[in-house]
């Protein structure tokens, strides 16, 4: 049996989530826009899911736009706000060097259509520099986009501070909270954010669905035009089973958030303890305290990432080099590069990410296998 330590890439669908979805594939198949009974019932199901997501964020249901995932929500947030505020003479966006590609590539597109983008650097722990961020804004800055918790190293950004600063400057603030949702307390009443991205398949919900929280009065132009769905902010027939599944997954995640944090922290701790007692040399990438509990990024100097991943895969341990989307190409991580880590650290980094299905026992077992593999590989190369 494989030990799955790649929950930051994606998570298995919770059996209760699947149960909740099935009726909306079977008898409840109507189109929510239809005016007959088939449609009305489905509209109610989508509304219930919207309430569940809104509840998880302490938002109002009208502030939740369902999308096809985190990537679309990030694209919509950045492009939607940029296009709307361009009409008011704004042409500048501030983000960081360690965002997910869904944000970084969208910023590249914004540059193509004439925006200026400042990519604020981070320190060696992956923490964004507040000073540089403050200096980056000018009077034509439309938006600041800084992720809540990083998907590769887990570092938590000072979003409250950034948000407060953005408010003070009259600049909108977006945060990609895909990795933080279900883990960190996301309360938009307290948190000074205007837009927030979340994704279902990272919280044991189905793939192909996500959401963007958008505060009232935030000007946003749609990305997809066509139907009048999602109050004209996102056209396209709703992925009803997906939305229902996402709602249920969020509800379950909220009910278990504290246990989940404790559980993943224990798994993370177990991994570190075992590796230490096995006597392998490793470093922890990311911030020592301010980190997501479920992500652990380690470097084993001398053990090349790609070789490690292959060997661990053969041993039945599923983990990653960085984010899943980029790992297909195995380029050096832009996040670790931005942290200015030494080359041998960059080239030997592995991300372990824990989740609901893991047991402390299997994590310890995995750690022993990892330690043995590292020893074998580093011995060989001597």
């Amino acid at each position: 049996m494989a030990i799955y330590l790649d929950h930051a890439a994606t998570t298995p669908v919770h059996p209760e989530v699947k149960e909740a979805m099935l009726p909306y594939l079977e008898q409840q198949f109507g189109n929510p826009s239809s005016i007959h009974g088939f449609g009305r019932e489905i509209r109610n199901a989508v509304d219930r899911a919207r309430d569940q997501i809104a509840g998880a964020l302490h938002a109002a249901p009208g502030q939740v736009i369902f999308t096809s995932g985190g990537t679309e929500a990030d694209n919509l947030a950045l492009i939607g706000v940029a296009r709307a505020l361009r009409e008011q003479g704004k042409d500048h966006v501030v983000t960081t060097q360690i965002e997910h590609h869904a944000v970084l590539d969208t910023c590249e597109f914004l540059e193509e259509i004439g925006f200026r983008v400042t990519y604020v650097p981070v320190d060696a722990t992956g923490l964004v520099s507040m000073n540089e961020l403050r200096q980056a804004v000018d009077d034509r800055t439309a938006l600041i986009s800084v992720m809540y918790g990083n998907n590769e190293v887990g570092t938590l950004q000072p979003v409250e501070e950034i948000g407060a600063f953005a408010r003070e400057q009259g600049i909108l603030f977006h945060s990609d909270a895909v990795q933080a949702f279900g883990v960190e307390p996301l309360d938009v009443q307290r948190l000074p954010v205007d837009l927030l991205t979340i994704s279902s398949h990272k919280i044991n919900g189905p793939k192909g669905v996500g959401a963007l929280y958008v505060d009232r009065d935030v000007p946003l132009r749609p990305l997809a035009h066509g139907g009048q769905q999602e109050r004209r902010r996102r056209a396209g027939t709703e992925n009803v089973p997906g939305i229902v599944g996402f709602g249920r997954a969020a509800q379950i995640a909220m009910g278990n958030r504290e246990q989940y944090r404790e559980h993943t922290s224990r798994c993370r701790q177990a991994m570190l303890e075992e590796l230490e007692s096995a006597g392998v040399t490793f470093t922890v990438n990311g911030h020592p305290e301010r980190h997501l509990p479920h992500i652990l990024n380690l470097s084993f100097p001398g053990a090349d990432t790609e070789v490690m991943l292959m060997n661990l895969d053969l041993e039945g341990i599923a983990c990653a080099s960085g984010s899943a989307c980029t790992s297909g190409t195995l380029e050096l991580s832009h996040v670790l590069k931005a942290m200015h880590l030494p080359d041998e650290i960059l080239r030997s980094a592995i991300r372990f990410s824990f989740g609901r299905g893991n047991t402390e026992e299997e994590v310890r077992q995995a750690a022993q296998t990892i330690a043995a593999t590292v020893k074998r590989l580093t011995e060989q190369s001597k």
Partner: protein
Amino acid sequence: MVYLDNSATTQPDPEVIRVMSDVMRDIYGNPSSLHGLGGKAERLLKQARETVARILGVSPQSLVFTSGGTEANNTAIKGVAYQHRGRGRHLITTQVEHAAVYEVCRQLEKWGWEVTYLPVDQQGRVRPEDVAAALQEDTVLVSVMHVNNEMGTVQPIPEIGRLLQDYPKVLFHVDAVQSIGKLEVRPREWGVDLMSFSGHKFHGPKGVGCLYVREGVTLSPLLVGGGQEGGFRSGTQNMPGIVGFTKAAVLAEQRRAEAVPRMYRWKQEMIEAVTDRLQDVRINGDTSEKGGAPHILSLSFPGLKSEVIVHALEEKGVAVSSKSACSSKGEEPSRVLKAMGLDDETAVGSIRISTGADNRDEDIQRGIEALTAVIPRLQHVMKGGS
């Protein structure tokens, strides 16, 4: 309840639900992950792509999975317009497109593109010679739907494709969302460069669609970040959705030969019944076997309100629609029917009846009974009777 609104959405086939359910349970990896579980998902994704490619007669690399027909249309039209803006900023489409094409074109106009909306004849069909005449030096894209979702008329796609062969720089997009399982679609043979599909219209799941992008065609993606789907569409793939889409496409194609004559017969039966037994009824679109899709029937009852008819039929246990689901809440008369020359009064009294592969003869009989009971009563009321 009898469901005769299959152009709005269809009931997923039990086999589709089964494969989706299996994928949700067993194949939870991310296809972009390098490890074995990711590899398993990637292989399944590859298989799905190959299967759909075989059905369409195209290469697997030319298929881009999306979140639905709307996203496919947005990706194709905005993507081509933006990518080739240096060459020209003129687009040609028709007055009868679905909102997911029409609204995109309207948006492009706001962004500085010029769009020609070609008129249609009384059956709702665009003339290929009008397409030819509308071509300009700076035309980059022609977008014409295959089957119209409101009245079923089939557009002359192969003819348009043929005439566009002489203009290799003009790309040709076809919204074929209503076609799978009802008509054959051959993008390559027809000279089509981009074609949109949506799973929930042929007994597959909602939230998944597909865009054919002929190899060599470039476009600026709608969604970026991650580089999935050959860079044409970023975002973690909706694995159960894609597998469900594929299963549904296979079943639709297998069943097409026997389902189409049946649907066509139902359509004829309904036409006969309403013309024989009702007064003041107009049948919209081309209803011939060659010129009209077998599953869509559009009827107008001048003087009545479509929503009133829909609700009255619902009380009789039959679900049909007032117009396309995406705009069914609008009160205005259908833009599409007006383009065919219907006056406002006729257009606001129109309903759409659409059948699916899972309907049975009894459903059609119930539909006919409900219509013939409801319409005369409503007409009587409208004429001031009591």
